[in-house]
């Protein structure tokens, strides 16, 4: 299949009071239609920066992003973003939050009835049909994230960008959300870039894992294609030798020294949920 999204040799420099800071150097990544790609790397290496350049919220200093043959110059709904902290408008209900997006994208194409159906359909897709009319303050963190995903899906984006969408959730909720996301992905086959720092999440969900070196001047260190059959089941995969090999590869990359800093070792918890202690990594930086 042909390339849908071309992240072409981008550099990103931020002006700071102490002079310019090079966050990214020569990040080069091509993504095919329907591919699910995870970006993994230590905290502060530049994952969000890559995502923000693709979203059009930052402009790359050098290089550029080409989507469907057109260069990305500004943000837009065809590159919908799911932000880490849900970013729902707190004064609107779940339904109204999705409605704002749907009206903006389909206001001139769909009738009112069609739009209502489409909003409800997307909320049901993320299992939020029962709590559509509650406000963000009245629902749990996981539910908020579901609404955030529904809002992004409702824009029918060409690429769905997710910045640590489940990072703030507890382990159990996160597992539910991952399963939901796999279901949705099986149905819609979206093109997705997801940032994560959870190795299991990356292996479970992705077609390809992109591992980034540490900043400054972070770049892509290694990519890993995941040839696990879908639908994937987390319990069966736990004993799958391929799955464990993939995990080991990613873990090894993250443990080794990459880039200018020496990363602290990752914590491996009992239920094989690997996360990195953000604070200790930042101390090392």
């Amino acid at each position, binding site marked *: 299949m042909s390339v849908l999204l071309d992240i072409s040799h981008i550099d990103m420099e931020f002006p700071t009071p102490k002079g310019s800071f090079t966050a990214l150097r020569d990040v080069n990544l091509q993504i095919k239609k329907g591919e699910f790609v995870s970006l993994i790397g230590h905290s502060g290496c530049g994952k969000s920066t890559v995502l923000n350049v693709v*979203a*059009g*919220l930052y402009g790359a200093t050098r290089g550029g992003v080409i989507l469907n043959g057109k260069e990305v110059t*500004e*943000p*837009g*709904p065809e*590159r*919908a*973003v799911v*932000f880490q*902290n849900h*970013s729902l*408008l*707190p*004064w609107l209900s779940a339904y109204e939050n999705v409605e*704002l*997006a749907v009206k*903006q*994208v389909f206001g001139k194409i769909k009738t009112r009835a069609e739009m209502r159906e489409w909003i409800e359909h997307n909320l049901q897709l993320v299992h939020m049909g029962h709590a559509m009319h509650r*406000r963000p303050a009245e629902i749990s963190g996981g539910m908020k994230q579901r609404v955030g995903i529904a809002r992004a899906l409702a*824009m029918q984006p060409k690429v769905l960008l997710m910045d640590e969408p489940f990072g703030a959730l507890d382990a159990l909720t996160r597992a539910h959300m991952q399963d939901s996301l796999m279901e949705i992905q099986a149905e819609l086959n979206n093109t997705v870039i997801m940032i994560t720092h959870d190795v299991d999440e990356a292996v479970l969900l992705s077609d390809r894992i992109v591992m980034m070196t540490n900043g400054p001047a972070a770049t892509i260190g290694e990519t890993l294609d995941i040839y696990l059959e879908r639908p994937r089941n987390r319990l069966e995969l736990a004993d799958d030798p391929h799955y464990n090999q993939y995990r080991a590869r990613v873990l090894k990359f993250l443990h080794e020294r990459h880039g200018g800093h020496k990363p602290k070792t990752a914590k491996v918890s009992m239920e094989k949920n690997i996360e990195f202690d953000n604070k200790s990594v930042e101390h090392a930086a």
Partner: protein
Amino acid sequence: MTSTTLTGSKPAAWKLSQFDGKLFGSAIKTVVVPFAGILVFLMLWSVAAQNIDTSLGKFPGPAAVWEQFDALYQEHSRSREKEAAFYERQRERNAKRVVDDPSYQPKIRDYTGKETFIDQVFTSLVTVMSGFLLAATIAIPLGIATGLSRTLNSAINPVVQVFKPVSPLAWLPLVTMVVSAVYTSTDPLVAKSFLNSMFTVTLCCLWPMVINTAVGVAGIDDDLVNVSKVLRLPPLKHVQKIVLPASVPMIFTGMRLSLGVAWMVLIAAEMLAQNPGLGKFVWDEFQNGSSDSLARIMAAVLVIGFIGFLLDRAMLQLQKLVSWDRDSVTH
């Protein structure tokens, strides 16, 4: 940023009252303690009043002031009766003339009695609300624009900072002269004196609203702004859907501050410029210098304070009504 120091002091006060609540129980705290506080105040006032001699007699104690409240109310009722009688007489006279001469067009002359204390209260309320609303219609859009544009913010900030501390007494002569020069209609819709006090109020309560609105707008969560960018909301929609609702709590904080300022400014303006209203009532009584004057002024002081308090409560209720963020609404 005045607003931050203002709101910053609030959580501490709130914590303190919560601490009290645990010690005394909430019923005692909300009823008994305030009541006791008022009683102690009345006693101290009574005692102090007896020991202060002025050229107009003893300083009025609570009893004397209470008497004047009654007297002021009686005056008002009498004046209303007179007014009703005045119109009744006219009606009768007109009816009679129409019977005598069917071609006669009846005329009704307005009653021109002296404004009573209660009339003055209403005049003051109308003036303060007009000045405040005029200020709000200027300040809120200006504050939003200032909060959205850093350039505009840098341009406006020095002006705001310089005008904010200006006393109404300094504005008043300028406003009076300008109104006299510009407002030269032969059949004026509203009195000049009304405009003088109204514009003075407006000039003084613009600034807290401009500053708070601007701070609220500039402080909107980056993520929400990013949502708006990803959706490509056009500028007006961005203001309507994101900026306005997000900054409603801060806008209302500014409006409450402004209304408090407006009420204080108004009384001073009315006093100095002889504009009708509560301030003029106080001034007239002072000039009058009868044995009741001090008690009547004291009655006015209490009414001024009480109305100021009610205005603040009203703004608070309005804020609760429109605010999505209950936590931001503090007493």
